[in-house]
């Protein structure tokens, strides 16, 4: 009896400890970023471009990086949605359930999912050299698009797989073609697609390694696809490497901006996915 009670206690402590470590980690990261970043987070940081001597601690902001990150993620999202949606609809509703091909696709997605972002960066860089593209907005969009594609596909696929067979059967028995059926199913799956998109955005917008070689960096906002573009993760990276204390603090302020951006996106993803599961029941 004693042994059992001890067992119970030990495992309870381990589990609570694990939960505590996660919480402390999260609070420590957010705390550090806020503690170091908030004092430097001025209105200028968000609304101004880097001025002359910005990297020596003089006036300016990271508007170029904020806008650049948004540009890249919008482009990457358009690219990956265009490829993800047809693929997921195909393996779920065109192919018979448990077909070999869909298994191969899902397995490939799992592998792509696990590839580190720096490898995508290197691959994107190699691809750009082959195509003759310089470090630019286009290069960044393609590479980030490749990074978030498997994330989007995998999470959208999970939702599509959960869809009951009743709806496709109902549509087919009304004499709908597969394409007509797919259009209605997509409508039903829209909240799931939103969740997938938001998850992908959260992952893509914060990644530094993919844009390191492919997007370049600039103090301006690009006006065409083949101009280099600044991004928030790289803005943090460069500012943090500066010997000037003020610039270092600005790196933390940029981190606050990026974190808030991602938090907002993940909370809305959560909101959409819970709304979706309510609809399911």
């Amino acid at each position: 009896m004693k042994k059992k009670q001890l067992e119970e206690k030990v495992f309870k402590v381990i589990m609570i400890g694990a939960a505590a470590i996660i919480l402390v980690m999260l609070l420590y990261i957010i705390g550090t970023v806020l503690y170091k970043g908030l004092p430097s987070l001025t209105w200028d940081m968000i609304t101004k471009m880097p001025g002359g001597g910005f990297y020596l601690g003089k006036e300016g902001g990271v508007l170029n990086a904020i806008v650049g990150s948004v540009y890249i993620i919008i482009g990457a999202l358009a690219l990956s949605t265009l490829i993800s949606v047809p693929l997921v609809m195909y393996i779920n509703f065109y192919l018979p359930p448990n077909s070999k091909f869909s298994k191969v696709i899902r397995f490939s997605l799992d592998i792509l999912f696990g590839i580190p972002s720096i490898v995508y960066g290197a691959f994107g860089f190699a691809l750009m050299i082959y195509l003759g593209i310089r470090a630019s907005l286009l290069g960044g969009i393609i590479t980030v698009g490749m990074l978030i594609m498997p994330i989007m596909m995998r999470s959208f696929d999970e939702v599509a797989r959960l869809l009951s067979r009743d709806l496709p059967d109902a549509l087919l028995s009304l004499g709908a073609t597969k394409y007509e059926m797919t259009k209605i199913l997509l409508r039903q799956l829209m909240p799931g697609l939103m969740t997938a998109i938001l998850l992908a955005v959260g992952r893509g917008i914060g990644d530094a390694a993919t844009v390191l070689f492919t997007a370049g960096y600039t103090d301006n906002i690009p006006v065409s696809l083949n101009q280099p573009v600044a991004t928030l993760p790289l803005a943090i990276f460069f500012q943090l490497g500066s010997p000037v204390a003020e610039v270092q603090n600005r790196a933390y302020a940029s981190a606050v901006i990026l974190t808030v951006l991602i938090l907002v996106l993940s909370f809305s993803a959560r909101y959409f996915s819970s709304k979706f599961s309510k609809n399911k029941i």
Partner: protein
Amino acid sequence: MISLDQQIEILTVNPVMATDRTTQLRKVIKNHTLRVESLDVYIEKQHILKDINLTIPEKSITCIIGPSGCGKSTFLKTLNRMHDETPEVRISGKVFVDDENIYDKNINVIDTRKKMGLLAQRPCPLPMSIFDNVAYGPRIHGTRKRKAINQTVIKYLQYVGLWDEVRGRIRSSANRLSIGQQQRLCLARGLAIEPEYILGDEATSALDPLSTKIIEELFIKLKDKYTVILVTHTLRQAKRIADHIVFMYLGQIIETGTTEEFFSNPKQKLTRDYLSGSFS
């Protein structure tokens, strides 16, 4: 040879002979029969339906009964070719709908499904408004005119007795209806594609007694215009509404007959055992 349509056209042009003979001609050449000949269905290596031969009488209700797993639903799915979606299913034999074998190579599966209005076990409204649910079928089959669609929607909602209940919220989501109302909506949706046959796959098993009664009454009303084929596992329901009974057991048809004959004087021992509740 001139085709049926041409003949009808000629007759229609000549007003003297028109209507009467036109309908007659349609009846003779295109009598609405459903005939199944030596149908075998395999799912992977399992032999699910064994040598089914059956003629379904038109403009009446035929109930297919039998214990679970006897192949009732599988049989129903062969009638509108829903097995096309599952490649493990292999079908041999012939199913004649209006004298055309629907498993013939040059038969368009969409046309076959259009002839069959299916009412599934659980109602499954499309993710759109009540109006659009009923309008969906006519729309995908090419009706564009708004007036025609409005008329169709109202006609079939009235037919299933839903119009008065939903007329104020026709544009709101179909998911807000009660489950019994949803099932009637699904029936209206199926009727709007103007089928010739109504298939029901345990269409009342998810419903409460009152909704079940409404649906059963609708089936009885439907048999004036359509040939109704229902799969059911409640004997009492079959007794209440069927004109003809088909009893299946382990993938075979054991006995068929009119309802009265079947229940009062079953010929097979298996049937008698089933009716007396020895197995279910």
